[in-house]
């Protein structure tokens, strides 16, 4: 199972959730597979999906799923310390760990070699870290949504990409429709 198949498998689970999605192919795949106004797509700035998602979770009470990658988390590794020390029950970090920098040609990451991001997350102080195989991701995500504890999920999948178009929606449109969804959910 590669990342695009993993993302397709979680579409029913994230359909009504606030989602912040990682730069590059993950956002492009999610946009193509199941665009919705409650998705925030990163068009630039590698490494900050987990931070942006945490910021949304800190500022309001609706659940937020940040979809990140192993390469991007390695870029911003200290995010796991910030997450651990500012736990919010409405925050879920889903690290899609394919052991490679997918958007740049599947160069291997250190997470695919000796480094365990789940172990790093635990060492940083994250108390609810779930490791799963790609096919189990939807169930793990649903369990996290049903629970009331901040969750970090590290989902192992195979390396590989599909052809997807770039996102041509303007960044302002992406942000404003996402913020509209945040407001609507917090007002209702």
């Amino acid at each position, binding site marked *: 199972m590669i990342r695009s198949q993993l993302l397709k498998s979680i579409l029913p689970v994230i359909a009504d959730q606030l989602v912040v999605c990682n730069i590059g192919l993950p956002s492009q795949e999610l946009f193509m597979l199941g665009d919705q106004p409650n998705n925030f797509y990163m068009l630039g700035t590698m490494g900050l999906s987990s*931070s*942006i998602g*945490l*910021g*949304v979770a800190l*500022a309001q009470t609706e659940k937020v799923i940040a979809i990140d990658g192993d390469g991007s988390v390695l870029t*911003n590794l200290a995010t796991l310390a*910030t997450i651990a020390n500012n736990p919010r029950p409405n925050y879920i970090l889903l690290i899609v760990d394919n052991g490679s920098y997918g958007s740049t040609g599947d160069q291997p990451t250190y997470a695919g070699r000796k480094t365990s991001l789940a172990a790093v997350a635990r060492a940083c102080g994250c108390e609810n870290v779930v490791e799963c195989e790609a096919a189990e991701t939807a169930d793990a995500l649903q369990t996290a949504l049903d629970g009331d504890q901040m969750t970090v999920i590290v989902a192992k999948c195979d390396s590989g990409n599909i052809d997807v178009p770039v996102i041509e929606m303007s960044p*302002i449109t992406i942000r404003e429709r996402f913020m509209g969804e945040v407001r609507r959910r917090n007002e209702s």
Partner: protein
Amino acid sequence: MVKEVDRRIVDDLVANDIGFVTTVPCKQLAGVIEVLQGRDEILHVPSNKEDEGMGLCAGAYMGGKRPCIIMQNTAIGVVVNTLATLIQYYQIPLPMLISYRGEVGEKVACQVEMAVHTKAILQQLGIPTYHFHHGEQVEELDGILKHTAMCKKPTAILTDANFWSTAQ
């Protein structure tokens, strides 16, 4: 030690509905950070690095809280990409309260190396930049915060050693 200017700055943040502040410390900013920590109106979340902090600020803004980042000018060397592709590209209002190390009064020679690039980088990025050199210039902060919210841009408030030493 907390001075009146530190309380004044935090009061201005609160008065402008800044509800989320992230910080990477500098000794010139220690008083402001200490005051922040005690204010219920502001959620203060320290970050490890300034680009991470800007990610938190972008998220907090989308979550409904006006953000502010407090950091040292050396951070300008860290955050160029984040400013261009996140804060500016998505039009997120972000006042950056920056300690301007390496100006007259500085004791650490290495700080001058980034000081000489600070304004040039901000200018290259097209970021409205305000340099507080005298203590009374804190009076301008309220207007700068309103301007930032209006134009939905990052803005830089550079506070140098003379500002901090002459501020009440």
